């Protein structure tokens, strides 16, 4: 099998879903052929195949984009709405939180919202305070939404298919720095079930629980520490909410130590929820407190030197692991 990038993987997954189901359509700013198939080209080539009605370039109207996607989903279609950058969800939170997430429950199951909201973000590209945030915790805190993010191209293809299949809303977070990552193409029809974590690396001394771009850092650190005889187990959640509790707890019960790692700021982040749940349910297995690593509690800065100081780095991860193991 050939290698594909994460960006190509997303494109292929959407393409094959559109080919199989006439109800799948894309909408968002600049997504059609006239604008080059999206600012990151994820929807390129789709207008030519499926026509303008199924690849709708929209006005800059996030509330109408998500609201329209909710309406179309209620009517039985499977819209894939693109919110160009994750910070822009602030413009349309009402449609996501009060409508997409709640309509199944509030209707007593009479309606549902099979909607994928694709969005991009990431620290490390110099976009500054309003184009970089990881805001997954906002959505993980709302009942009724799946929150998904891939860390590699194969998972991207499989998670996107599963997200489009899902009969409930999915926030699909893409990291700008990961679009170029390559992996062996898992091929057509490949699916990674939502709510299923991956043990990205098996280890025995400590569990490092993470997702998205920081999985790459976690794996690099695990490689490095292996040379010192420290065995790190890396859990890639893949679905952030509702997450695969069984895999997380099994890993922590095995290693007896856990660190959560994410790019989003640390206070009130998803790491806090993971840590609390681990401590409630694995107390007897724990050899020490669950540690949390996350971004600095400030807006994402512009200057490269500040941005690099803001983002959790490998040195920090190694330091926390060694401290947890009493090797600091």
């Amino acid at each position, binding site marked *: 099998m050939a290698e594909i990038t994460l960006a190509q993987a997303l494109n292929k997954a959407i393409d094959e879903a559109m080919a199989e189901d006439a109800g799948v359509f894309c909408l968002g700013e600049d997504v059609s052929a006239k604008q080059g198939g999206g600012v990151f080209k994820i929807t390129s080539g789709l207008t030519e195949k499926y026509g303008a*009605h199924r690849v709708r370039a929209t006005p800059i109207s996030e509330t109408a984009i998500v609201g*329209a996607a909710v*309406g179309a989903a209620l009517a039985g279609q499977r819209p894939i709405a693109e919110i160009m950058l994750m910070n822009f969800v602030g413009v349309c939170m009402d449609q996501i939180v009060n409508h997409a997430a709640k*309509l199944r429950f509030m*209707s007593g199951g009479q309606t549902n919202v099979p909607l994928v909201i694709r969005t991009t973000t990431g620290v490390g590209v110099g976009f500054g305070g309003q184009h970089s945030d990881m805001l997954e915790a906002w959505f993980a805190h709302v009942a009724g939404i799946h929150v998904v993010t891939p860390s590699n191209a194969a998972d991207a293809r499989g998670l996107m298919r599963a997200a489009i299949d899902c009969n409930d809303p999915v926030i699909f977070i893409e990291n700008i720095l990961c679009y170029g990552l390559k992996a062996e193409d898992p091929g057509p029809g490949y699916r990674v079930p939502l709510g299923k974590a991956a043990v990205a690396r098996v280890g025995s001394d400590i569990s490092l629980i993470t997702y998205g771009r920081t999985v790459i850092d976690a794996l690099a650190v695990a490689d490095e520490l292996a040379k010192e005889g420290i065995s790190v187990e890396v859990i890639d959640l893949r679905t952030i909410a*509702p997450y695969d509790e069984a895999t997380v707890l099994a890993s922590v019960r095995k290693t007896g130590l856990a660190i959560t790692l994410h790019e989003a700021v640390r206070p009130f982040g998803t790491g806090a929820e993971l840590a609390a749940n681990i401590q409630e349910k694995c107390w007897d297995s724990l050899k020490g407190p669950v540690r949390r690593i996350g971004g600095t509690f400030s807006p994402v800065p512009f200057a490269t030197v500040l941005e690099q100081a803001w983002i959790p780095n490998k040195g920090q991860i190694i330091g926390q692991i060694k401290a947890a193991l009493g090797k600091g």
Partner: protein
Amino acid sequence: MSKIDRAKLLDIYTRTMKVNRTDEKFRSLLMQGKVAVMYYCVRGQELVSAAAMAALTDDDYVVCTYRGQGEQTAKGIPPELWWAECLGKVTGTCKGKGGTMHITYPEKGIMVTTGVVGSGLPIATGLGMASQNNGDGKVTLVSFGDGAANIGGFHEAMNMAQLYKLPVVFLCQNNRYGEHTAFADHTSSESISSRAAGYGMRGVLVDGNDVNQVYPAVQEAVDRARAGEGPTLVEAMCYRMMGHFFGADFSYMPKEHLAEMQREDPLPKLRAVMLDHQFSEEELDAVVADIDAEIDAAVAAALAAELPGPEELAIDVFETPLVEAH
């Protein structure tokens, strides 16, 4: 004489009185303390809702607001399901999980009742988009108040609907108050319908207390939408004859305004139109008596119905019921 035929007039009258008798019954139950829930009275707006629903087919989609009793009743939600939902019973349309502000009944096209002012317009745009995509021939009507015209979603939805020429009817029930604030104190333009021009959309202003104005205007908008001629913004002037919600103070309404709305009350006007068309007093009274009997039975059944069990909290959050609340 009206251009509306007798059969359609009777249909509109019946729907109007269903809305009115439901409203009267709800207020009476609230006054007697037999129920204690949030209820947004529709007294004064019955005709607009009824005439608009009479212009749609059963399959057409409707998106309405917390003040949506008129659309819900007039579109044909069975009273026993509607009352049970309003009373929080498991036999309700939404198993008691939606309530008065979130009534849903897709079987009759009531797709969303939103409790957030203005949020229905973008959703209606999407329902219209689905119909345009799959060619099902349905029209979506979204009802909202004058207050909703000043939130961003209104603007975004109007522009998008016209851009794609979607089969949507935007029905603004201008009842002259956004919550407790009078129209002139919250809106800079003289009307809402005049804004349609800003989107290149057709805008129509009608007297919502006159069946001969409101029904033909909505029917034409529906017909155009179905024919692929795009959306229309219909503004129906009417009065909210009560406070924002049941029990809310409305002493802020000026005396002249109160007198004006008594004068313009759509119900005596509609009754006069019916009599003009040779419907007898007895016939019209019989329609109301039948409606009252149906409502009384529905209320009795709803009062006696079971409450939802706690297991409902884990159901309908996602497609797969939650095993454990995290």
